[in-house]
């Protein structure tokens, strides 16, 4: 026993490689929506407990990302977009990702239970389970509707934030969940229409490849139509108000117009203008979600001065 075997490996993983396992960009959306869910609730939360709760939600989301990378390493290696991820590029061993994913999941759920309440912790556990097991292990390789149901995992954070403050689930948190849940399919399929993907080569059924681009365009308009009543409806709950409603009406009209434009297009149109419309609608979808949750935050801030909401 003279020297450690780690010297056999040419590359030593650093903190950045482990951090990349947590999908930081996804985490930022989770932090934002989770924070809004917490701040718009009618129950005040101590700032430090709020900070710890958001940290737990972020770490939990990151942990599910690590578990996803562990399970999907074979797919990731076959796709250009994901081949540079820590596991397929050989910077992190699969076992390390599994260990980090499980350890951080346990840490986040237990700490959230101790810091806040069991409902919030259970919802976080369920989110991790849903993303790692239901989406990654089951749906992703089985059905082109994978992102529809799998989108639920990304929709839970505001519900967890709300549960952290109130200890309950209510119509407001269900509608915040539904907003992200219904937004995910048109957002993702708008992207799928203009990104040259190699999902087919990796064996992942994506709607654009299993059913074609025309069917995908129809799906974009149908899911956007289903999204509108959810987004508008949220405006009439206790966390909505005139500001939110005005933002929702404008953003939904904008998104719906984009989805309609996509629906009217053909592959020839896309080739001719290099997917100009699809790229624009994808960007609008990003503004859409940010604007809705931002408006909820503005309503909550106005309520502090007695001028927000419908009262």
């Amino acid at each position, binding site marked *: 026993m*003279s*020297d450690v075997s780690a010297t056999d490996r040419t590359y*030593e993983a650093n*903190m950045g490689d482990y951090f990349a396992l947590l999908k930081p960009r996804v985490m930022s959306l989770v932090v934002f929506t989770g924070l809004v869910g917490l701040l718009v609730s009618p129950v005040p939360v*101590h700032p430090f407990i709020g900070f*710890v709760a958001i940290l737990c939600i972020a770490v939990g989301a990151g942990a599910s990302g690590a578990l996803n990378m562990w399970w999907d390493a074979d797919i990731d290696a076959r796709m250009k977009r994901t081949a540079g991820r820590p596991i397929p590029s050989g910077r992190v061993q699969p076992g390390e990702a599994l260990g980090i994913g499980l350890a951080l999941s346990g840490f986040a759920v237990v700490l959230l239970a101790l810091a806040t309440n069991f409902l919030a912790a259970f919802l976080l556990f369920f989110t991790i389970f849903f993303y790692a097991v239901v989406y990654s292990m089951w749906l992703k390789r089985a059905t082109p509707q994978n992102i529809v149901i799998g989108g639920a995992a990304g929709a839970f954070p505001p519900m967890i934030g709300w549960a952290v403050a109130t200890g309950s689930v209510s119509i407001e948190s269900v509608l915040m969940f539904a907003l992200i849940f219904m937004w995910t399919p048109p957002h993702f399929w708008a992207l799928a229409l203009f990104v040259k993907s190699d999902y087919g080569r990796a064996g992942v059924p994506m709607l654009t490849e299993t059913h074609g681009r025309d069917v995908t365009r129809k799906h974009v308009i149908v899911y956007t139509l289903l999204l509108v009543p959810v987004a508008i409806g949220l405006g009439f709950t206790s966390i909505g108000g005139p500001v939110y409603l005005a933002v929702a009406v404008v953003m939904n009209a904008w998104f719906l117009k984009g989805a309609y434009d996509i629906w009217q297009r053909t592959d020839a149109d896309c080739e001719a203008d290099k997917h100009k419309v699809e790229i624009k609608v994808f960007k609008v979808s990003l503004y859409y979600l940010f604007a809705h949750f931002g408006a909820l935050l503005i309503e909550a801030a106005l309520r502090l001065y007695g001028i927000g909401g419908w009262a």
Partner: protein
Amino acid sequence: MTIQVEHEIHNRRKGRNYGVGLLLAGFIVIIFGLTVVKVLQLGEVAQFEKFDHVARPQIIPEEGASE
């Protein structure tokens, strides 16, 4: 080959070790902070002592008075 006091692995893993150290320090801050906040939220410390492993009825006014 003997294990040196300054092994090359110390340099190679310096960043990672600092990272783990910072994470552990952060963890301590979180647990300490949570403890302080939770205890202060109880209002009076007697509320906390009430559940401190051993029953202390003398610090519970109502029950202490009835005995």
